[in-house]
């Protein structure tokens, strides 16, 4: 069977193929002429010298606009050291990273947001311990609370990079001022305020936990925040490491406490319907009714600032802002739930370690913060460099010495729970299943 009726056609195609090959070969010629740069600006990068022309591959879940800002934040590092950073962001990061690591195609550096995953790769011997310089920079710039999440068996596997604060309740300062409501400072105030708002015929709270194949996670944040508020941080640590069973009375009490808001048809789901509508409302839309006055309160992390409709002013005197999710029992301190990613490395070549060290320094934290939309727990981050008000508030909370920081529990648990049965369990819980049945099912499925 001849595909091409005439030989001339075949030659034309052959020609096109050859041309295409040549064009592809020409494509990568123009990347290597940027070493050197302005020498004055490069003084700060002298410690990373000697790696000119090397490449470090980076893999993370950060994409699009956020990824552009991130790559811009280390562009000077690239210029001055001659190290090329090859960044790739993926929406399927967690699943694909495992495939790549097992397939022997691991990236040099991965920004891993789950300490549970770091532990798994570290114990499997896939991750490389950080170099001495990185360790020094990490210990100088981050609190022990943070570093313990990337430490496995006494070895540090990466410094934190970006962070977020999850203990926030979003509200509308404008509406609060109009109605004479004040920002609650305690749990009782919060419930009182909710009742007041409910009395005006508006459902006070709105929520949404639909998030594609991660559906359920916003509800797990609620439970974690309430565990930290009804129990001591030590009990919380026991819970996430499974020293405390998932269906123990402590956890049941915390979930039921969350239920007093999330499963209360008088309180939810402002703008969307009844309790069950939480399960089908997307995380992105969850708090939007605040802008139309159909709901007043929405518990969600600092990064929710990016989800508001265009033209919404996010500021203390604007259309929307966030307040700290108040504690229930002041004697248990000021708990802060948060998350963040860690720059862990699967290679220990000098250029990889140089990049890791740079990411842990105040220079990078400040360079990134200046570009906007960034929170870091880096102690040397100058708050003046943080541009938007919610990020400023987050950095203040993270740098507050009296706050007790705990990492998002579902990211610390084994993935089968933290990204599986816990998420699914919360979806069932919202959909009407009772607390003890949900928690027992999660407990029974905890990997042995």
């Amino acid at each position, binding site marked *: *069977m001849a595909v091409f009726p005439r030989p001339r056609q075949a030659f034309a195609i052959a020609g096109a*193929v050859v041309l295409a090959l040549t064009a592809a070969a020409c494509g990568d010629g123009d990347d290597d002429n940027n070493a050197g740069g302005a020498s004055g600006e490069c003084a700060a990068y002298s410690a990373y010298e000697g790696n000119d022309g090397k490449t470090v591959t980076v893999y993370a879940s950060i994409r699009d606009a956020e990824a552009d800002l991130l790559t811009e934040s280390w562009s000077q590092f690239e210029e001055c050291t001659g190290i090329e950073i090859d960044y790739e962001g993926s929406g399927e990061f967690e699943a694909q990273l495992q495939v790549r690591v097992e397939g022997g195609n691991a990236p040099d550096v991965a920004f891993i947001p789950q300490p549970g995953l770091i532990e798994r790769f570290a114990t499997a011997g896939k991750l490389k311990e950080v170099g001495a310089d990185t360790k020094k920079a990490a210990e100088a710039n981050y609190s022990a609370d943070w570093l313990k999440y990337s430490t496995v068996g006494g070895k540090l596997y990466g410094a934190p990079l970006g962070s977020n604060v999850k203990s926030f309740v979003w509200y509308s300062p404008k509406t609060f001022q109009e109605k004479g409501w004040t920002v609650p400072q305690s749990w009782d105030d919060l419930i009182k305020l909710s009742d007041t708002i409910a009395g005006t015929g508006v459902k006070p709270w709105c929520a949404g936990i639909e998030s594609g194949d991660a559906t359920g996670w916003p509800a797990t944040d609620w439970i974690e925040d309430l565990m930290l508020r009804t129990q001591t941080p030590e009990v919380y640590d026991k819970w996430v490491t499974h020293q405390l069973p998932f269906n123990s009375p402590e956890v049941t009490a915390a979930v039921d406490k969350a239920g007093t808001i999330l499963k209360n048809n008088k309180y939810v789901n402002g703008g969307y319907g009844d309790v069950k*509508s939480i399960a089908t409302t997307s995380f992105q839309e969850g708090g939007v009714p605040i802008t139309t006055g159909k709901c007043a309160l929405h518990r969600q992390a600092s990064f929710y600032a990016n989800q508001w409709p265009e033209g919404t002013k996010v500021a203390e005197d604007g259309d929307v802002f966030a307040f700290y999710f108040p504690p229930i029992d002041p004697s248990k301190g000021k708990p802060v739930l948060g998350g963040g990613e860690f720059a862990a490395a699967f290679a220990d070549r000098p250029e990889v370690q140089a990049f890791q060290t740079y990411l842990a320094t105040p220079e990078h934290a400040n360079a990134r913060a200046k570009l906007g939309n960034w929170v870091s727990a880096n102690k040397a981050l100058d708050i003046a460099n943080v541009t938007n008000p919610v990020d400023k508030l987050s950095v203040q909370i993270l740098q507050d010495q009296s706050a007790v920081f705990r990492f998002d529990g579902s990211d610390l648990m084994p993935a089968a729970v933290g990204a599986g049965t816990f998420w699914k369990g919360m979806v069932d819980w919202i959909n009407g299943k009772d607390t003890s049945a949900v928690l027992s099912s999660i407990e*029974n499925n905890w990997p042995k």
Partner: protein
Amino acid sequence: MEFSEQAPKLAMLLYGLIAFVVVVGGLLLFLDVVPTWVGDRRLQRQIKAADRAAATGTATGTTAPAKKRRKRRKRTEVWFALGFILPAMLLLMIGLIFPAIRTIGLSFRDRRGEEGVGLANYEWIFSQPEIVDVVTNTLIWVVLVPLIATSIGLIYAVLVDRARGEAFAKALIFMPMAISFVGASIIWKFVYAYRSEEQEQIGLLNQIVVWLGGTPQQWLLNAPLNTLLLIVVLIWIQAGFAMVILSAAIKAIPDDIVEAARLDGVNSWQMFWRVTMPSIRPAVIVVVVTISIGTLKVFDIVRTMTNGNFNTNVIANEMYNQAFRYGESGQGSALAVLLFILVIPIVIYQIRNLRQRQEA
């Protein structure tokens, strides 16, 4: 939109395009040039042999050298055959046989694939109530989808056969086939979308309910209705496939049989059951089998519409979750093997059926 900002993305697109041209063009070229070249050589050889035969005046094929030549040619043909089969064999080994063996091996091991755990992973499938639900759901899918999709396709094919506007009517039901599973799922997610009573409905189904005076329902939340509603999506996609194949089969029924039946005075009911159905039976079986296998592997629809929540999960989705999200490669592999075992009887039935038809 600044062009310069989009440059990297456009470059990526260009690379993709170039790669496509190189691979596809290269393959076409290969498929065109090689057989032509082989054909030319053979032709030349034949001409040469004929010339020589004419020159020497002896008949070809009877002399000893000619026999030897034929033997040699046969050997080269064997090599050629091997050359064509080998790449396919190699790819099958790499892409199918080796992974299958490894998956079966992993299904008897722990989550890291290190220590053997015997049948524990299979026990887990049948002892966890959640996973039993997953298996049950898959069985509901595989019973309902082939049955309903084939029935709809068949009825439709018979009804529109030789009707006016047949091509248009067929295109209408075939259209969903062109939409990807994920695309179809997103469309149907909107159809089932829920908004509370006081809001304007954005979902077609709930709007209809409201028009009829009812209250909007959370369609995707309530088992077992939600699984049936997801099944509707796959039927919507597959009915077109069934219709096209069955319609072609109906058209292939010899006119003389139909005419003879007409002369015997059958009514349309008898025509369908006594003439049409027996004639297209093989096609019906092919359609049912193909849809069954596709249904067993359903993944995209469930993942896109409910992510397996609200008791709608199926084996393929849970297998992916276990193996790639939860890092439970043992349990994930066991589910994969279960899926494989469920497909085998259908495949065997299909092969036997094909063989019987060839013999007949």
